[in-house]
């Protein structure tokens, strides 16, 4: 029987959405879903960063279940800085 999915609230660039996540899959699998649900399809998932409520960057290669998220968890997905800091 496939593992029961858990719902994770993800705030994408400030906009909330809820993603059904497979606890046995890497956390990064929630990123494309969250992007698609919020219409942020212009940049690939690797150009986004996922943080917890304290602002700590999460290692999204780990399985979702290893984080022990509570039902009230809220994650924050933001576009990385990209190229910058130079004149050209």
């Amino acid at each position: 029987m496939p593992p029961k999915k858990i719902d994770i609230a993800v705030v994408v660039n400030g906009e909330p959405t809820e993603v059904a996540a497979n606890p046995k899959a890497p956390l990064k699998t929630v990123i494309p879903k969250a992007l698609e649900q919020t219409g942020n399809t212009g940049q690939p998932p690797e150009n986004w960063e996922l943080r917890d409520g304290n602002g700590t960057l999460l290692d999204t290669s780990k399985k979702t279940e290893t984080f022990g998220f509570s039902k009230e968890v809220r994650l924050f997905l933001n576009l990385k800085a990209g190229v910058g800091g130079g004149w050209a």
Partner: protein
Amino acid sequence: MGVNGQSADPRVSRSKFEREIDEFRRFASDYAKRGWLLAEADFPRAFVVMAAPQLKPPPIVTGVQFDYTDYDLRPPSVRLADAFGREPYKASELPTTLLRQTESEALPAGLALPPGMLAQRMIQQQPLMQSYGPDELPFLCIAGVREYHEHPAHSGDRWELHRREGAGRLARILEIIDTYGIRPINGYGVNLVPQVSGLTQGEVPA
């Protein structure tokens, strides 16, 4: 350019600005834990105060002045500013330059490697806050910020390429300022200046 720098329908810009503010307020308690405090929001401007809660006592590091005039036909203007007086910082006054570590294989100008030798990756630190000089207003040099896209050096990286990614959204820009300017702060810098106030004497002889 239209009235007050507004070319887009002002109702559209206002509506998008209000969405930014509403979404920030929805998660205001989460953001407050990270030291992000919305001090004022009155279209087209918003002012956010950013503190460093990891220090005790926590310092207010900077204010951030957003101007969403003409959004999202144009990106928002973003300035680091004094949290109390709200004056934008000159480059020499910045409490943080948002240092970022980057890797490069390029050698400094004028240097070349012998044939057959591979370049090692160089790690360098680069400020995301850029300016022409210490008395100039610095700008946040990332896509999604008006001052970046209006700079002649970035004419090849147009706002239109980033607009639909949410590059100019309030939470995203605050996240970048937090990542490079607030979270790396791990203590207070203290200068002690000892002064000689006279001589001390040990045992007083009989």
